[in-house]
């Protein structure tokens, strides 16, 4: 068992909206700074237009702005017919604040006082509705909400959908809002959007490709990691997945490792496996560093609460795929609940400039 063996996807556009700036690098570099209050850093009128966006939840606004950024970056969802375009929406905490507010309204004033504009958002997938409408994503809309790893899980689920013939291209939108103060506060805010398609399709239409990604999603039952047998099985599973993903490598092959882990036993097992897989016989020792400093999205947050957000992994992939040409990159995400997601990123040979593949 090596998890979801996703096909390779070409990344043709990346859009990032974050409190620290509209690039993955800015979000990572500025990660130690204080997080602005929700909404204080984002003007929907300036970013999206004067009319029609006011009543969208912030996470939907972020996703729309990031999607426009991905298209401005070269993504072309319209390169295939609308019915062949799939949407992957990933979120872990996306509407927690709105739910809290709506619950307060129901319990204090009654349901009649709810806003009809926001009432449809009790269904979390509606976060992607405007995005699907604006970009004509009629193939399907798949919402992955697995806590912590939703964005990278969506990569593997999307590749599977492509292989199954459900679509010819994908827009992946990872988006989050902070938790409400009454529920602990904190968490992530912003959005990362990727436009994706099979590498051969991107090449055939002469698209600029940032790089390619392949993802694996695994689950390690946390309870099984208490004993030696379970830990051994987890180690074997992870080693197999890493070998599948990275292939046989020589000492000259280097891989830059980006970790988005928490302090759980699951993350410990993953860190051990990654270290073992990358420093064993015939392999080059790999550089390993956290995606972002403590306090940045995806780090330093308690598992199961604010750590449920999926932007840590999404930003890591965005950063890896848009960083200047260099070695292959491995993005590793894990959560205490048991989810592990691995993404191999292969930058295009000259991703620092426009590349016609």
């Amino acid at each position, binding site marked *: 068992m090596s998890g979801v063996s996703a096909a390779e996807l070409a990344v043709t556009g990346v859009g990032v909206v974050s409190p620290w700036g509209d690039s993955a690098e800015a979000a990572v570099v500025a990660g130690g700074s204080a997080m602005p209050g929700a909404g204080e850093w984002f003007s929907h009128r300036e970013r999206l237009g004067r009319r029609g966006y006011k009543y969208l939840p912030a996470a939907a606004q972020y996703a729309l702005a990031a999607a426009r950024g991905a298209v401005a970056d070269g993504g072309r969802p319209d390169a295939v017919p609308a019915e062949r375009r799939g949407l992957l929406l990933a979120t872990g905490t996306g509407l927690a604040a709105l739910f809290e507010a709506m619950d307060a309204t129901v*319990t204090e004033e009654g349901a009649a006082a709810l806003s009809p504009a926001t009432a*449809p958002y*009790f269904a979390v*997938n509606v976060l992607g509705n405007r995005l699907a409408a604006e970009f004509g994503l009629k193939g399907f809309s*798949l919402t992955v909400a697995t806590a912590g790893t939703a964005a990278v899980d969506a990569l593997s689920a999307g590749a599977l959908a492509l292989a199954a013939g459900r679509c010819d291209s994908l827009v992946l939108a990872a988006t989050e809002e902070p938790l409400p103060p009454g529920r602990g506060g904190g968490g992530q805010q912003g959005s990362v959007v990727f436009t994706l398609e099979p590498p051969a399709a991107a090449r055939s239409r002469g698209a600029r490709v940032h790089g390619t990604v392949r993802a694996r999603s695994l689950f390690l039952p946390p309870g099984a990691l208490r004993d030696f047998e379970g830990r051994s099985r987890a180690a074997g599973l992870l080693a197999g997945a890493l070998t599948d993903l990275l292939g046989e490598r020589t000492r000259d092959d280097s891989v830059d490792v980006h970790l988005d882990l928490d302090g759980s036993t699951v993350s410990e097992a993953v860190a051990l496996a990654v270290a073992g897989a990358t420093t064993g016989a015939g392999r080059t020792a790999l550089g390993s560093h956290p995606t972002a400093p403590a306090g940045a999205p995806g780090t330093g947050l308690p598992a199961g609460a604010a750590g449920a957000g999926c932007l840590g992994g999404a930003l890591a992939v965005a950063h890896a795929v848009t960083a200047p040409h260099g070695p292959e990159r491995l993005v590793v995400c894990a959560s205490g609940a*048991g989810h592990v997601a691995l993404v191999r990123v292969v930058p295009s040979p000259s991703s620092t400039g426009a590349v016609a593949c």
Partner: protein
Amino acid sequence: MNREAEVVVTGIGAVTCHGAGAGTLWRAMTAAGVRLPDRPADPLARMELPLINLVPDLCPGAVPAAGRASRFASLAAAEALSDAGLDAASLSTLRTAVVLGSCMGEPGGNERGRGTDGGWAPPFRLATALAAELGLFATVHDLGNACAAGGYALGVAADLVRAGEADVVIAGGSDAYSRVALGCFNRLGAVDPERCRPFERDRAGTVFAEGAGILVVESAAHARARGALPAVRLDAVAWSCDADHPTAPGADGEQIVRAMREAVGGAPDTVGCVVPHGTGTRLNDVLESRALHRVLGPRAARVPLFSLKALLGHSGGASAALGAVAAALILRHGEIPPNVPLKEQDPECAVLLPQDGPVPPAAGAGRVLVNAYGFGGNNASLVLARTGGESR
């Protein structure tokens, strides 16, 4: 990816407002009794119509409000695995996956007075909880595709099997009472004060329901190799998205027609029964009826529908999975139970709803079409068939 690989259903499990068990569901289907909605024991449910079909025998005191949807999924999965002849020992030797869809996930703990006030937990953790409970080293996805979530989960399950990425997939959906969801449906004017009455002339909305439907899905080759004798196969799962209004279905019905056509393939004449989405909302039932005529052609008026939500209410993210379980039961038993009696069928819904007793599938047609539509224009259509029967 072998897109032509045969995918079979080797086990089914259900938890509904009629109780736990697929057998209980079948008895309810054959009895076709009227199920009036309950009122949740929630003093903070301040809304005009706090109506929902609750799962019995799991009173709030027995299972924490924070864990009802997970409990439903666990019960239904245990039944489905037993039905499939799989136990913990055999599962541990297989490449497994768990893919569950839900509209609300596990909302209880995040709503006032129903869990740990002040804390917050990720609501979409049903598949995660089930995999952890079963101790599975697996592929695990929690999906949140509203009322089509179970259909999306079964689609991912079929894809995993056809890609050779999992030997066995435990897939389906589960949903439990949510004050926020019911309050929002009240605000949208979408709750029928009487009960869930799809295709009735004077229907006035839907009534939510609790429940879970779980199916064990694997390749026919794998099932054969382990000695399983599945009676039902999952022919196809097709998805589409209206990419239009957040709540109203696309007025032209184009995307629900496309999903149905993709699921049915080139053989609409082999559809002998339909488990419709049919929620009881005015627009939805009319649109689906018209779409069925476009897909099935002149036969549409003669293909029996089994209106599951009239019996169970609308179980949200579980509804498509429960529709698939009902379809599997119909295929196993070889007959379509009578529908819950309608006072008067809406003439704008020109579909066949037998009510006088069980009927056979439409002549010479053994496949069952299941539809599921959710907010956000998320659509899924599934086709199930008897193994060895006609194909697409």
